[in-house]
């Protein structure tokens, strides 16, 4: 009997069904914890799900490649989801017309700062070249950041984790930074969060203030597109 279960396990562990199922289970469990915590940014669902999966795969001795054979079906949807970002971007465009110039100037300054400071600080403290390239797109939403990292010779999965940590840091620290600056305007607060810490920051901004959330979503979309344009060209010309 135990041998049968062992054999069944060996078969199932290698099938794509397993990778796909545990991904959905881990995420749903993590999301429930996030909601129970009152949407505390420290209880980020991606962080919890990834930690649980890494532990599970480590304990069962399953290789990442085996897991990914199933999880790739979820991963694939990042492409269409990136395309779908055009829809909220369009919906918010009208609200922003009144603030067009501050938005464009803030976007360009913020985008360059995010890329440049991440690479330079990493280099200053001795990060390897591949790690620096993986750091460059860290302020934009994961599907875009991973695509950029892949194009310029970084490590997409390392970038994915750096993006998530950046989002959590921004969501946690933004209020403190803005209060120290005595900045009240919810539109500017939201936009700066969106530029610096993409979707995780945006989710946080929506909980604080509707207008902040709308501007954060806009910033996330615009910065995704701009960073995708800037990083490959910067990477070509910035001596690493």
């Amino acid at each position, binding site marked *: 009997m135990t041998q049968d279960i062992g054999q069944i396990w060996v078969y199932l562990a290698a099938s794509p069904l397993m990778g796909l199922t545990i991904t959905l289970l881990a995420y749903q469990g993590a999301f429930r914890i996030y909601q129970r915590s009152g949407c505390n940014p420290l209880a980020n669902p991606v962080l919890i799900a990834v930690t649980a999966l890494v532990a599970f795969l480590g304990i069962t001795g399953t290789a990442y490649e085996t897991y990914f054979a199933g999880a790739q079906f979820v*991963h694939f949807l*990042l492409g*269409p989801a990136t395309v779908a970002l055009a*829809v909220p971007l369009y919906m918010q465009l009208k609200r922003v017309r009144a603030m067009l110039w501050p938005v464009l100037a803030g976007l360009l300054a*913020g985008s360059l700062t995010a890329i440049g400071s991440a690479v330079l600080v990493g280099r200053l403290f001795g*990060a390897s070249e591949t790690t620096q390239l993986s750091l460059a797109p860290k302020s934009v939403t994961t599907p875009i950041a991973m695509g950029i990292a892949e194009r310029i010779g970084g490590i997409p*999965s390392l970038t994915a984790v750096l993006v998530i940590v950046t989002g959590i*840091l921004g969501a946690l620290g933004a209020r403190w930074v803005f209060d120290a600056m005595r900045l009240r305007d919810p539109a500017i607060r939201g936009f700066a969060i969106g530029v610096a810490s993409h979707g995780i920051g945006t989710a946080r901004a929506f909980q604080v203030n509707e207008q902040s959330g709308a501007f954060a979503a806009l910033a996330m979309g615009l910065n995704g597109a701009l960073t995708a344009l800037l990083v490959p060209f910067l990477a070509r010309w910035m001596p690493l």
Partner: protein
Amino acid sequence: MLSALTQLLIFQLAGEFVARSLALPIPGPVLGMLLLFFTLLLRQGPSTELQTSSQNLLQHLSLLFVPAGTGIMVHLHRVAAEWLPLLLSLLISTTVTLIVTALVMKLCQRNAGATGDAA
């Protein structure tokens, strides 16, 4: 749902095609997003179906990050070896980006003398 998903895939495919054929360094899905955005501008808005489906897909955007994030298990040694530059880079860069973006917007707004309802 089905026609909206097909539409998204067609735009992604078009983006991939343009990126490869012009040898652009931009990811295909990002170009697809820009193509869809300009199409929406021309058509003056998405269909109700595309809007609902996009909303549904983006509502669970975090789930789509999980398989890639789990890939960190392959890079644990790199994170362990470079945790200090990584942590400092993320911490400093995120804080500076928040400050610079907000300051530039504030200065620009003041210089333009803009009178938004956002006070």
